[in-house]
């Protein structure tokens, strides 16, 4: 019973252009969920907030708090939409894999998009590139380049390596946590479906692990956004 990813090779006849259809499906689904939820949540805005508006404003305040921890709000408010979108996108990505994993035939279709290193690394690369972009845009090229050789020029190689390690750790931390969660969940479900005894033996650990996975999923979202803002502040703030 091997499960494969539904990979399409050589999309549009371009050699080497492989597309994992499961990732495509999950990306679309997660984006749709986030879009519909957030637009619904901020549809009827009132001066006196009620219900879902309270939650959305709480989320905004939460991300605002993360940003304010790292930089002054004047430059930081530019990154609020990014932080909010990241938080909702990754949270939903993590959570869609907690409830269920869907297999059609031999192909694994329904899973957390964040349980794939390609997906998480895409996000981390995007974040790191954005930090460089805003670093140049806000402080100018000279100040941006100066960050690589401060406090001493000796630091240059380390600073360059740091950019790559930041990218890798940011992406792989998220991937590792979610992927490990899905592996253990898979093992427990395998045990549960093997026999009657296995079912009863695995029921309670599965429930416990699902709860824990939920917890990990939310914590990792926070960590991801927090680190995004930390890296961003390294590039855009004067005093770093």
């Amino acid at each position, binding site marked *: 019973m091997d*499960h494969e990813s539904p*990979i399409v090779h050589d999309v549009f006849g371009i050699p080497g252009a492989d597309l994992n259809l499961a990732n495509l499906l999950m990306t679309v689904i997660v984006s749709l969920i986030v879009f519909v939820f957030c637009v619904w949540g901020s549809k009827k805005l009132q001066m006196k907030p009620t219900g879902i508006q309270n939650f959305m404003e709480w989320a905004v305040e939460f991300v605002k708090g993360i940003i304010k921890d790292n930089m002054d709000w004047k430059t930081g408010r530019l990154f609020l939409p990014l932080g909010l979108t990241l938080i*909702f996108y990754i949270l939903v990505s993590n959570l869609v894999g907690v409830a269920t994993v869907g297999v059609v035939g031999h192909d*694994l279709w329904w899973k957390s998009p964040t349980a794939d290193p390609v997906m998480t690394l895409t996000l981390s690369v995007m974040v790191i590139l954005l930090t460089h972009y805003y670093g140049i845009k806000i402080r100018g090229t000279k100040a941006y380049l100066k960050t690589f050789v401060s406090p001493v020029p000796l630091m240059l190689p380390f600073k360059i390596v740091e950019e790559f390690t930041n990218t890798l750790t940011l992406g792989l931390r998220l991937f590792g946590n979610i*992927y490990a969660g899905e592996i253990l969940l898979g093992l427990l479900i395998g045990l549960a479906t093997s026999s009657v005894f296995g079912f009863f033996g695995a029921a309670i650990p599965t429930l416990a692990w699902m709860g824990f996975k939920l917890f990990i999923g939310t914590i990792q979202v926070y960590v991801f956004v927090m680190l995004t803002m930390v890296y961003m502040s390294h590039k855009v703030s004067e005093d770093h």
Partner: protein
Amino acid sequence: MHSYTDLLIVGAQIGGLQWVDMLVQLFFFLVLLALLKKFAWGPLMNMMEKREQYVANEIEEAEKSRADAEKASKEAAEQLNQVRAEAQKMIEDAKAAGSKQEEQIIAAAKKEAERLKEAAQADIQNEKERAIQALQDKVASLSVLIASKVIEKELTEQDQEKLINEYIKEVGEER
């Protein structure tokens, strides 16, 4: 147990760099970011900023009106004190005026009484003098009359006495 490890995700291929996936996800994420910025975060942030401003305004207004109220109450208290002092002064003035008038009235009354008394005394004196004058006049004329009558008649001593007595009696009756 070993066979289960193949079961779900572990068996699924995670290796391989599917760069089309990356592009697809990047595309979707950026589209999501743009759409949410327009439809969700923008309005949300606007509303929150609006509320912040509104609250700040309300607080400012409240502080201002409180200061106004304090000022007004201070003014009112001041005015009240002033009015009270004025009223006190008025009462005192009235009292003083009252007592002064009382004295005046009493003095005037005394003076009037004195005057009346004096006038009455003067009247009495006058009357008395006039009465005495009248009496004197009468006595004089009577004396003359008596004398003349005595002389006219040449009476006897007896008669004379009788006559005198008669006339005196007459005078007494006349008065």
